[in-house]
């Protein structure tokens, strides 16, 4: 047994996806996905728009039901869970949406308090307040606490979106296009934040992106998706040293530092 295989066996499997299929009518989005994500790994799912990347993490979080195949998260088969079990599992999953999905009618403070108040009912107002301030401090946006989402910039909204998921201390983070629509400097800040979240909160992450810079700076492992299936998995260098024309074309048309 070589060292790498031994290391993988020692690591705990957090997300296990086997033979996953998902279609919307005649549009076959996922076509036999297999993926293993181990504890504290950052796995980047890379691919062009419309290849089914976002659908994959929606299936993992139970927002969508798979047509076929199994999705095992923290030892539980997501598709077979009832509503209560799914809610309990979701306490361990943080989902950062592409458009941040902040609640428009609430301030930043209320956005962050929302999941906390509903899921940790034994907390006092003071404890909630200190949790909010601590998480906002982690993402470097404590000064925005009383602002409305409409008053924030794109990058700030992404950070607040991440802070809102972190407030429940999830074991798994799912990032949907964390750097899309951001300038290169702000993107780099978000990449640094993703790495900080991994180190500070010990999270296991799946990062959906088509941004090679983001993939390179955040990913321990890259899974290259094409037309609803993974065509290559491995480290960044392993994936992009492949001769596969589809991967080379993807690389060629992306700007990379």
């Amino acid at each position, binding site marked *: 047994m070589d060292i790498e295989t031994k290391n993988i066996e020692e690591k705990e499997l957090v997300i296990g996806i086997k033979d996953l299929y998902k279609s919307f009518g005649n549009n076959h989005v996922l076509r036999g996905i297999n993926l293993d994500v181990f504890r504290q790994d950052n796995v980047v799912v890379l691919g062009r728009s419309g290849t089914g990347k976002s659908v994959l993490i929606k299936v993992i979080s*139970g927002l969508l039901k798979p047509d076929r195949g199994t999705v095992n998260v923290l030892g539980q088969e997501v598709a077979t869970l009832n*509503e209560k079990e799914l809610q309990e599992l*979701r306490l361990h999953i943080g989902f950062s*949406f*592409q*458009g941040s*999905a902040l*609640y428009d009618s609430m301030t930043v403070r209320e956005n962050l308090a929302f999941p906390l108040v509903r*899921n940790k009912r034994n907390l006092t107002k003071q404890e909630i307040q200190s949790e909010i301030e601590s998480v906002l401090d982690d993402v470097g946006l404590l000064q925005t606490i009383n602002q409305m989402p409409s008053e924030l910039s794109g990058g700030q909204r992404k950070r607040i979106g991440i802070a809102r998921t972190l407030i429940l201390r999830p074991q798994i983070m799912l990032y949907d296009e964390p750097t899309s629509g951001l300038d290169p400097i702000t993107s780099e800040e978000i990449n640094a934040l993703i790495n900080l979240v991994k180190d500070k909160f010990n999270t296991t992450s799946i990062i959906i992106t088509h941004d090679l810079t983001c993939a390179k700076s955040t990913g321990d492992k890259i899974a290259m998706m094409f037309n609803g299936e993974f065509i290559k998995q491995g480290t960044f260098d392993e994936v992009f040293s492949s001769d596969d024309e589809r991967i080379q074309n993807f690389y060629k048309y992306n700007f990379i530092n």
Partner: protein
Amino acid sequence: MNSIPGEKILITKKLDDFFIGLYSGCQFALRFFKEVFKPPYEFKEIIKQCYEVGYKSLGLITLTGFITGLVFTKQSRPSLSEFGASSWLPSLVAIAIIRALAPFVTALICSGKVGSQIGAELGSMKVTEQIDAMEVSATNPYKYLVVSRVLATTIMIPLLMCYTGGVAMLGAFLNVHQNEMTSLITFFQQAFEKISFLDIFSSLIKSIVYGFTIGIVGCYKGFNATNGTEGVGKAANSSVVLSMFLIFVEEILIVQITNSFRT
């Protein structure tokens, strides 16, 4: 005659869509009764929505109710005067307002104002993934968004209906007082002479049903909004159209049922 396969498929698809929509709409509405009694109870959100639905509709309802009462009395006067029966005007107006106009006008106004607001608000939350965000943060969005809004419309629209009735009666009184110099007490004594418990009770039941309809239709359309901002507009629009249509159907049914109790 030659059959047109494309057209046939289109009709079949439309029929399929209709029945699928009907089924999912009924399921959505039935879920309310399952969720409403289950904790946690979102009292703060319910009170906020009652304020949005009730208090913020008062201006429009006051204006519409007052004008309805005034105009209805003004229009009825010549016909009754022709038979020398203008003294019956307060009773006639009261029956019309309490049995039909107050619940119906309130429902139609709220269907436009509140229904479209709920449809647009939830529709925009749906297309910007805020509802999904709520769901993945282990909060039941149906409970938080739908139950609170439907409860608010079901509670507030009967109250608004009572208010509309009162304001419409004041509008009617103004016209009667202007022409016959009738005092307020006499007007209301004459008005309520012909009003029975069944009239008031059926109007209350009607407005509870209308309130539930407006809330549930707005939420259903909002929850099922698709295609970005265009979808939000469509959700708001179809909330109004569908809830008005259902209100008309419910009006016919409830009037038939109530009339069967009268005979």
